[in-house]
């Protein structure tokens, strides 16, 4: 009993107000410390993942990696060239489909705002953007692989990627078009320019940089997609540029190599990952830097 009293006695001589201040200061320090830890954890995750991709991926990178097709099971060597070509071809074809549609959707929403169908277009784009990519894969499988084409084919993969890209292009371009000052449109219309000329000659050229950014962003995003390609492009270890046959892609190669039992294939998976991350991350970083400079 006496012990407790002596233990409390010294602190109780400090005025109440001071104790509260000390407690608040300590709480502040502890919480800010925890917040700092959270930040460091997030940064550490990025560093770890990128570090592994670089360290494990670099040994796979050589000339053959970019120029040769995969060697048969168990043989060391070869490369991922068919996947690389497939990814480029898929990007080109899906871009050719998605970019016009996406830009048209943005023009429709911004420039023909009064139209009755503007809101549904915008809303549909938002909803498609939120869909799991595997769902889009199932849809394109049903539409093309089973339906119009009849078998797994590169064109089906390109359409699946295009469906993923359209909302990205549409929504980014929409934001850019909204930044074009109305006075420009009005000036052109006042001079007697028809609507189409205002859009093609005034609005789009003004927003050129932003539109280009949107397209590159969408292409970069779609380059890493895997799930929809599993159900559409299927994959192919041989060189192919035939749109009606299955085609390889880097993400598909990573998947196949990652779940294989061969060490050499694991290295190839890391190498292909490094290529993807460098291209996609590089593009993303570049766009951010450019965007920030323009804002300044």
């Amino acid at each position, binding site marked *: 009993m006496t012990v407790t009293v002596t233990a409390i006695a010294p602190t109780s001589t400090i005025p109440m107000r001071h104790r509260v201040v000390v407690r608040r200061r300590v*709480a*502040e320090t502890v919480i*800010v410390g925890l*917040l*700092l*830890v*959270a*930040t460091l*954890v*997030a*940064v550490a*995750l*990025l560093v770890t*993942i990128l570090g*592994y991709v670089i360290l494990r991926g670099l040994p796979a990178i050589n000339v053959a990696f970019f120029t040769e097709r995969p060697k048969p099971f168990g043989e060391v060597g070869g490369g991922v060239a068919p996947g690389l070509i497939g990814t480029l071809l898929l990007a080109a074809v899906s871009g050719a489909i998605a970019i*016009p*549609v996406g830009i*048209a*959707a943005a*023009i*429709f929403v911004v420039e*023909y705002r009064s139209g009755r*169908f503007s809101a*549904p*277009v915008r*809303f*549909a784009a938002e*909803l*498609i*953007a*939120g*869909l*799991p*990519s*595997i*769902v889009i894969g*199932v*849809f394109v*499988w*049903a539409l093309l692989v089973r339906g119009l084409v009849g078998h797994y084919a590169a064109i089906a993969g390109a359409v699946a990627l295009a469906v993923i890209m*359209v909302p990205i292009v*549409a929504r980014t371009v929409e934001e850019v078009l909204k930044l074009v000052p109305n006075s420009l449109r009005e000036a052109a219309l006042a001079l007697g320019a*028809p609507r*189409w000329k205002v*859009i093609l000659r005034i609005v789009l050229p003004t927003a050129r940089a932003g539109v280009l950014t949107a397209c590159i962003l969408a292409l970069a995003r779609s380059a*890493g997609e*895997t*799930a929809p390609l*599993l*159900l559409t492009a299927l994959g192919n270890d041989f060189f192919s540029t035939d749109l009606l046959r299955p085609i390889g892609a880097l*993400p598909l190669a*990573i*998947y196949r190599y*990652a779940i294989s039992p061969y060490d050499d294939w694991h290295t190839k*998976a890391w190498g292909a*990952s490094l290529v*993807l*991350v460098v291209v996609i*991350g590089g593009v*993303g970083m570049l766009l951010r830097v450019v965007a920030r400079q323009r804002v300044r």
Partner: protein
Amino acid sequence: MTRTFDRAFAAGVAALALLVPLTLAAITVLLLIDSWPSLTTFGLSYFTTTEWDPVKLVFGAAAYVYGTLVTTVVAVLLAAPVAVGAAIYLTEFAPRAVRAPIAFTIELLAYIPSIVYGLWAIFVMVPVMRSVVEPGLQVTLGQLPLIGKLFSGTPIGLDLLSGGVVLAIMILPILMAISREVLLAVPPTQREAMIGLGATRWEAVSRAVLPYARPGIIGGAVLGVARAFGETMAVTMVVGNSSRDISGSLFVPGYTMASAIANQFVEADSDLYFSAIVEIALVLLLVGIIVNGVARVLIHRSIADRPAGAVV
């Protein structure tokens, strides 16, 4: 002449633009048609039974729904504190000069493709989970009553917990980016008033800033849920893909809805089997639409103009 061309141009733009809602409609209709046999054969029992047997042609997806829910909950529970904590630190406490660069660095995580997360998870994360994290959890949290059951079984690394952890890492950047955006949109007067009354920085943040930003942060979390729900590749690679039972432990190999599609779609050899798989996709479609709608409303409400200084 010009007027005709103007009309033709408008019609062309409209035709291309209308492909967007048309695509969404086509996705819904095609998935509905293809899952119809399964919908009519199994009805609600599809969601309440766990028997998924392609030989007997009986399909119940409850175990897949369970796997998706468990991995998603684990992901949000792990990612939300880190993401929101980092967002708060980077908007309120960090030295001004490093705020944007660090936020930008964390957001780079969003540029890493799902398949690369999967690769990293298989070769780096899973061994650590198997040999360090899971045994560690067993001897600590596993000893507690009630929640101990979550950590029972042999730690194998390829299980629901690993699926949840890799999802957590993947939704972290979007959660942080949205939380940060919402916090930045809180009017400075909120903080100033509180600090003017003698509050410490944290007191100002917790009582005047966070309540104001709450709907937006919750919206970000919901959007994270939407991401986690349909995420396929990375989860498929670490979640185990074998058990079809609901056991209550996180240390069992499971299946998520998306990984079930990825794994079994190409194998489906009968119409009913195929239809049952498409029904999973239909469920993902509907949940995706609902969850995204809710998230957008919440975030929009938080960033949209409100009278300066209003505490919600």
